């Protein structure tokens, strides 16, 4: 069974005659354990698609199933974790309390929560920062806390909306590698929105290329780079070939519309 199954999804913002077609005829199936990147120019609806999968917004029509259930029900069941471009940590909570937030909501006992938060902070290499407040951490560290929070309740699906978009290139590449290690360890299915071609190629099992106005899927490119991937992966000829392929697919989408 697919983790995410999207069929004939459209999303229209606004009312006629000032309508914007954000998404048009989206069909996509995401299998367990996949790492899917959604890539495309600004306004291609990739963040909108991510939000529809998470039932943060509803599609105008079409069907979205998460783990075989309608998206709203999957959200009620807390079947996904989400990471935004900004870390969205609560300033008034310490690092460990931020990670524990979903566990608190789900009614775990304090000792269960603390143990789980420590485990998660170890996973994102932030052991020792439990009692710090978010403002005491750098941007990259804050985003790692945000990932730890999203994974804390062990969701089968992780939605990530340009999580490293605000970080510098060096931090970004390091976090890319860390994210792959986490993905390998947790076996979570990940849907990842990005602007960056090398990031999409490095991380993904498949890259979904989208075009703007109206937002459509123009191509789905399987990434056959060997696992596990590390910094050396970025030097492989195959890596460059795939980067070129994605870039051309993006350009194709551009020229097709206009």
């Amino acid at each position: 069974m697919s983790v995410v199954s999207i069929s004939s999804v459209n999303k229209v913002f606004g009312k006629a005659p000032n309508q914007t077609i954000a998404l048009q005829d989206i069909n996509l199936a995401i299998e367990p354990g996949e790492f899917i990147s959604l890539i495309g120019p600004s306004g291609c609806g990739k963040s909108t698609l991510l939000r529809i999968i998470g039932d943060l917004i509803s599609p105008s029509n079409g069907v979205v199933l998460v783990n075989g259930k309608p998206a709203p029900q999957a959200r009620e069941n807390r079947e996904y974790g989400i990471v935004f471009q900004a870390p969205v940590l609560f300033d008034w909570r310490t690092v460990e309390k931020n990670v524990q937030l979903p566990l608190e909501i789900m009614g775990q006992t304090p000792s269960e929560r603390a143990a789980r938060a420590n485990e998660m902070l170890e996973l994102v290499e932030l052991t020792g920062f439990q009692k710090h407040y978010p403002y005491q951490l750098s941007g990259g560290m804050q985003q790692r806390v945000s990932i730890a929070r999203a994974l804390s309740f062990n969701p089968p699906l992780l939605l990530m909306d340009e999580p490293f978009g605000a970080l510098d290139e060096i931090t970004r590449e390091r976090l890319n590698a860390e994210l792959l290690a986490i993905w390998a360890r947790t076996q979570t299915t990940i849907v990842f929105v990005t602007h960056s071609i090398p990031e999409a190629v490095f991380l993904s099992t498949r890259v979904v290329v989208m075009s703007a106005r109206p937002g459509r899927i123009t191509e789905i490119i399987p990434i056959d780079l060997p696992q596990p991937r590390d910094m050396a992966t970025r030097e492989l000829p195959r890596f460059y070939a795939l980067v070129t392929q994605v870039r051309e697919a993006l350009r194709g989408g551009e020229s097709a519309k206009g």
Partner: protein
Amino acid sequence: MASPVEKTYSDRQKAPSDTTRVSWLERVRYYLPTALIFVAVLLLWEGLVRGLDIKQFILPAPSAILDAFMGSLAQMVNLGIYTGTEALGGFIIGCALGIGVSLATSRWTTARETLLPLAIAANSVPIIAFAPVMNNWFGVSNQFSKMAIVAVITFFPMMINMTRGLTLVDPSALELMRSYAVSEWKTLREVRIPNSLPYMFNAFKVCSTLALIGAVVGEFFGGTRDALGVYITQEAAQFRFQNSWAAIIIACILGIGFYLLIVALERLVIPWHASVRKTEE
């Protein structure tokens, strides 16, 4: 939410004793110029009054004010307690109502959108003009008439600020809570209320000043001789200006004390907020 502050953990791992000593010295250095200017102004004032032979009913010398103050210290303290009670009582009523209305309307967009413009309009009305009316309603010698004035004055800034704090929330934080499928009530408790605390403390600061102004000015329109405002006007009417000035000192002490109390409370309650933690740098 958390801003990407460049200051990282490594800055904060100095030995604590070191940082306290440095910050103590820095604090002295920070406040010294202010204290010096304060003393200089007092000396200049004293010198001018004596040198130019300014009549005491125009401007009494600081030494004369201090004499009057120390001479009737017990009475001054009583004036302070009397009017301070009015200011504090009215402050508590006004702020409690402001917070209550704001919390009650935070869930209903229409209620909020109808009430907020009214509150903003009411906030620009010089509410102190209602003081004689309140004195009439609740009795001029009744402390509650002054509390009522203070409550009305503090209600609007409190409600406006609190409503902002409850509604100006990072949209992503609301999406996050939605992803957890939690109730509106839980979102209020986990996101909106903590987010509103800095706004609330700002309103407390504004309202502390307003409360004292409201109480003293309310007393200008009548009250017993235990009240600061009444004492100031009566002494002034009999040309004992040094006494009026002594009472003004009490009003200043009350105002500053009230403010500092709120700042102390703020540091205790929201140590994570930028307005508070800045002093640590």
